[in-house]
């Protein structure tokens, strides 16, 4: 993607988010000039950059939103006048437009009409035919250059504003090579209607006369005009990215000092790094950890020849191990972002959902400072959005039912996150009607998901689990929201794709809680490397109880299989070659090598052809064609560049 566009999409979404948060805070906490200013700045900045792309409906709607916010700031519109709804609606639409623009490179055809409606709703907040009042509070000038320009033409500006006209400041920075492109900036300026002032300045100081080149445009043109902004934009329609327009506030020139943005804009000391670079770093660190593993066996071999040298090498290896581990944790930490990156989008969406369904909702978020891997945090958006919408749509009852149940009129929806070791726990809870296991059984029967016998056998917990079955929906009526969401089965799939799991609990009449348990990050797994024939595989060390060398004579045939006695217990023996579907080979020698592994509660012996070392590996989930293969939990790159497949023993034995 074009770098400019990529940057615009990132910043655009951040600005929309910022404005949404500010406005929701205003609603929650009452009037705050700082919040209002922040929202205004965000919308203003976004409107400015929208002009670089073919997003005219968005630009117009944002412009109207900017006007409304500015009017509220200047107290020309009452802060309690209900301006929030249309502005938030506009921000929501812009977010959807950005998504569409990213996917398709254009806005949907409906955007023009939608934009017009948003604009009309926004303009409706403004007092009729607003003319900035001369006796109102003096608004700060939006930018310094416009203020300076206005100051040089104070009389002309005052005269125009005195006559009730709006004065717009224009700054035009033609491209350096615009002459080659056939542009004539002054001709454009000449086409500008209602020109009040024109200033032409060099962008950088003129060189000595002998070095001056006439082919490069080194000019900056500024102008004041009383024409409507649209007319000005029409003149510059072929160079929209080279102009900046600022509407001069009335009596702006009365302020002698120039107000600059910046208050409250603490410059965050943050470095924006492409996630792919972090991943590359993680790969390198992973390979380093593998290289470090080789050092341990080298130290052992050296120790056998020269004990002193071996010890020194082992000490070194231990230090390397510690440092590599720390480095790995640090890099993993770079990918850690707070859940708030996803959670912060929900308050506005929940507000929308509640309004759409006409249900008053109190939405609370707790624990959004919990951190998890970026992929987990981003991947949670869709499933959580669905769960939250479900909570409002299907969970929270309509007003009469709540009243009848003596519940408060406002429904409670809570999104909560906490950390539990290497996992994060995310719950979505509502105080709605809850799920009725009997109704779920009946619905499953109607839809023919299970046989009547199977349904009757379900306990309540298993009946609740039915909501995750594909094609299951408990809604008796289809609402506007149900149509656009995904089913609960998709929620489960999305969470499982992130390496997590979902469960649901419910109190009939008291509410529903959906619980998501997810890994915080990819972690290093210690595996034991084993050999079958010429093939090597890894087995996660936590699955291995012990490794044994057993005289072949102690293996007893039982039924169709084999068994052996270990620590006074008789354990089944399986050959890994059989489990993997490799060609059977006769036992070599008189000693069998086997691992005792846990499969559920039952230890099982797995016979292999050889053990080799333990390794710390960065386990990657299987992807692509291999992702569907049973018995594999992932793969890892080894020091020699070969890929080691890591086995999921319980699944293999299954």
């Amino acid at each position: 993607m074009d770098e400019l566009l990529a940057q615009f999409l990132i910043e655009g979404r951040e600005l929309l988010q910022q404005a949404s948060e500010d406005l929701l805070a205003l609603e929650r906490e009452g009037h705050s000039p700082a919040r209002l200013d922040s929202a205004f700045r965000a919308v203003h900045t976004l409107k400015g950059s929208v002009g670089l792309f073919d997003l005219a409906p968005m630009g117009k709607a944002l412009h109207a939103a900017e006007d409304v916010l500015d009017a509220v700031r200047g107290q020309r519109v009452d802060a309690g006048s209900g301006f929030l709804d249309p502005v938030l609606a506009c921000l929501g639409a812009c977010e959807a437009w950005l998504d569409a623009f990213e996917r398709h490179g254009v806005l949907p055809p409906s955007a023009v009409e939608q934009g017009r409606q948003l604009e009309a709703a926004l303009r409706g907040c403004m007092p009729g035919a607003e003319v900035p009042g001369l006796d109102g509070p003096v608004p700060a000038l939006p930018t310094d250059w416009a203020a300076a320009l206005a100051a040089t033409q104070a009389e002309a500006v005052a005269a125009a504003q005195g006559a009730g006209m709006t004065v717009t400041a224009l700054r035009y920075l033609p491209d350096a090579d615009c002459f080659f492109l056939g542009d004539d900036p002054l001709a454009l300026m000449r086409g500008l209607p209602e020109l009040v002032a024109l200033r032409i300045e060099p962008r950088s100081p003129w060189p000595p006369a002998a070095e001056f080149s006439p082919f490069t445009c080194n000019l900056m043109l500024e102008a004041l005009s009383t024409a409507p902004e649209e007319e000005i934009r029409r003149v510059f329609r072929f160079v929209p990215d080279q102009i900046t327009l600022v509407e001069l506030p009335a009596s702006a020139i009365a302020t002698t000092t120039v107000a600059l943005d910046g208050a409250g804009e603490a410059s965050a000391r943050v470095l924006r790094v492409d996630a792919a670079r972090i991943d590359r770093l993680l790969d390198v660190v992973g390979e380093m950890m593998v290289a470090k593993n080789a050092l341990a066996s080298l130290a052992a071999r050296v120790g056998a020849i020269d004990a002193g040298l071996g010890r020194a090498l082992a000490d070194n290896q231990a230090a390397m191990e510690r440092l590599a581990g720390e480095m790995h944790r640090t890099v993993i930490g770079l990918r850690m972002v707070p859940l708030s990156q996803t959670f912060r989008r929900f308050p506005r969406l929940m507000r929308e959902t509640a309004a759409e369904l006409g249900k008053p909702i109190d939405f609370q978020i707790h624990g959004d400072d919990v951190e998890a891997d970026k992929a987990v945090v981003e991947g949670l958006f869709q499933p959580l959005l669905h769960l939250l919408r479900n909570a409002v749509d299907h969970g929270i009852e309509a007003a009469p039912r709540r009243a009848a149940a003596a519940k408060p009129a406002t429904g409670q929806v809570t999104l909560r996150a906490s950390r539990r070791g290497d996992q994060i726990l995310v719950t979505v809870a509502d105080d709605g009607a809850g799920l009725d296991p009997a109704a779920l059984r009946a619905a499953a029967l109607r839809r023919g998901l299970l046989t009547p016998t199977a349904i009757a056998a379900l306990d309540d917990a298993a009946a609740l689990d039915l909501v995750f079955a594909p094609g299951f929906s408990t809604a008796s009526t289809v609402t506007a929201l149900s149509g656009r969401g995904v089913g609960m089965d998709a929620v489960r799939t999305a969470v499982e794709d992130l390496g997590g799991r979902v469960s649901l609990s419910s109190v009939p009449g008291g509410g529903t809680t959906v619980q998501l348990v997810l890994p915080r990050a990819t972690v290093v797994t210690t595996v034991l490397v084993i050999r079958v024939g010429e093939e090597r595989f890894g087995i996660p060390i936590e699955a291995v109880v012990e490794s044994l060398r057993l005289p072949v004579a102690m293996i007893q045939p039982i039924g169709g299989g084999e068994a052996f006695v270990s620590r006074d217990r008789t354990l089944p023996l399986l050959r890994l070659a059989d489990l993997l579907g490799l060609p059977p080979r006769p036992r070599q020698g008189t000693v069998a090598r086997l691992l005792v592994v846990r499969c559920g509660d039952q230890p099982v012996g797995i016979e292999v052809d050889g053990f080799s070392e333990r390794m710390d590996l960065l386990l990657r989930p299987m992807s692509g064609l291999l992702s569907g293969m049973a018995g594999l939990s992932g793969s890892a790159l080894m020091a020699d560049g070969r890929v080691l497949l890591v086995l999921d023993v319980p699944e293999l034995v299954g």
Partner: protein
Amino acid sequence: MTVVLEGDIIRLRGDCPVADAEALVARLQEAPGRAVDLTGAGMLHTAVVQVLLALQPQVVGPAGHPFVERWIAPLLPMRRSG
């Protein structure tokens, strides 16, 4: 030809397109101190105006074109021929 040298005065005649900028620079650089007469000039291309702004020659006016006279002339060291 729209850039005409007459003694120490460079006269611009009619509308001056972008190509005139180079000619004007050449005339000004070969003998610093020459004046530029705009009285017979029409609309000036931005590149031509840029030459006047950068090299600051003495300019003789009033400019022949009202836009130039109204908006550009005030930015230049102008001597009015009356």
